[in-house]
């Protein structure tokens, strides 16, 4: 089963994303901050990360850049899920290595579509 790691310091968002992805047939793991997200991704068995940009400790950008630096996680698809919607924020997210960018408030249905699309591209 495809496993998605959801990292967000907002419990509601974690639960909403996890609920929707589980409905769509994915196995979901959750992390409440950047450090836990990095640990979970390094532990392996994760096929895609949905990453909040602003988290305590290690930001989503830091986590993404760190994942790209490490050979074991360099190819791991990352979708940024964030309230920061300015052009510059989106550009910064992609520059850090994100594969896609979803703005909050988000459409759960659209998020699932993007997860499917990013996974499809990663496997192609």
């Amino acid at each position, binding site marked *: 089963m495809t496993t998605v790691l959801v990292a967000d310091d907002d419990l509601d*968002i974690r*639960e909403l994303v996890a*609920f*929707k992805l589980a*409905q769509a047939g994915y196995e979901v793991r959750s992390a409440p901050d950047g450090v836990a997200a990095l640990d979970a991704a390094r532990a392996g068995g994760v096929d895609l990360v949905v990453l909040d940009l602003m988290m305590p400790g290690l930001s989503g950008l830091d986590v993404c850049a760190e994942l790209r630096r490490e050979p074991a996680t360099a190819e791991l698809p990352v979708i940024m899920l964030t309230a920061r919607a300015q*052009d510059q924020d989106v550009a910064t997210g992609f520059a850090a290595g994100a594969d896609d960018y979803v703005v909050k*408030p*988000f*459409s759960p*249905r659209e998020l699932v579509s993007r997860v499917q699309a990013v996974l499809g591209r990663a496997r192609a």
Partner: protein
Amino acid sequence: MSPLALVTAGLVLVSVLVLALAVAIAVVRAVRVRRAARARAVAEPLRPLLLEVAVGEGPEAEDAAAALAALDAPGWRSVEPAVLAVLGKVRGDGQRLLVELLAARGVVAGARRDLTARSAVRRATAAELLGAAGYAPAVAELGALLRDGDPEVRLVAARALGRAGAPGAVGSDVEEAPRAAATALLASLAGDRPAAPPDVVARSLLLVGTPAAPALLDALAAPEPLVRLTAAEVLGRLGTTTAAAALEDLVLRDPVDAVRVRSAAALGRLGVPSATSALRAATTPATASAVRRAAVRSLGEVGDPSSLRCLWGLLDDADGGVADAAAAALLALGAPGVRLLAQVSSQGASAPAAAVARAHEVVTCAVAAEVMPPAGLAEVEAVLADVLARATRGSVAEVAA
């Protein structure tokens, strides 16, 4: 009674009062903790229903919403805070279902009533809720709240209007809401003092998006500079290319430099080549320095090759900020601009020293920072190879002579 006895009695009384107060505080806390635990116990089993509503897909979501709408009063009281917490975090069908649920429970009607409450906190809380709900039918009331006597209430109303007037808003007045929200937001900037912080108003106008364009275009002709300036900024960020002609006019003729600066920046964002002529005209020395710099930066963003000569001439401008912006703009132009910079950089004594130094600096920094596009690198290499070839031919000729 002796003074000592009086003091002792007083101390005992104070001790008893302190003890009673401590016990009262402990009891109140214990009651609150028990009440919260009871509410959690009731709400926890309802959590999956709430998540089902919030993800909002299919008959399951509709059924879950109906189940929550049918809860008894204690059940609803326990789950309502969680519903409000999730509201504003999702859009689409989930948002619509949550708003319908809140409407069915009377929460939306209560919030609309509270917009005129005596308490400023209640007015602000109600506006916040209606904004998070993206509730289009409340746009007129939220617009009226921009004239509230309390600045915090006005700020919350300005933020809420962005969500309630956005294309994804819910409710029966969805079609009219964006224009009404945009008009109210822009009107809040008119007058001696803006009713809400201009950056908050601008962000809300951006949320309203393209449907705000007609009101924004009208606002470019407003008598208040702050309204024109904000409209120019938002139109640029929205990419409303139909605003280009009006923005060009502002760049060249507005009496307020700040408006001209924002209009020039907006033209850069729009990237319309037809704006090149107006932007070039705004770079003449008679124009205010800030306007010239903004116009030069925008020439780089527009990227029309017809601005090469103008930017080249500005590389040794007496205003260092303009000259730096010209060098950066040439870099932004891509291959033709980089070729020109590389040629100026390699001209040595045959070009103005300031231009040579500036061109050399910007090319070197771009290469070192690895921000030079491949086409630009190729141009730099070609120019350097040409310079080397000419120098070699010169040396050979000298030796031969």
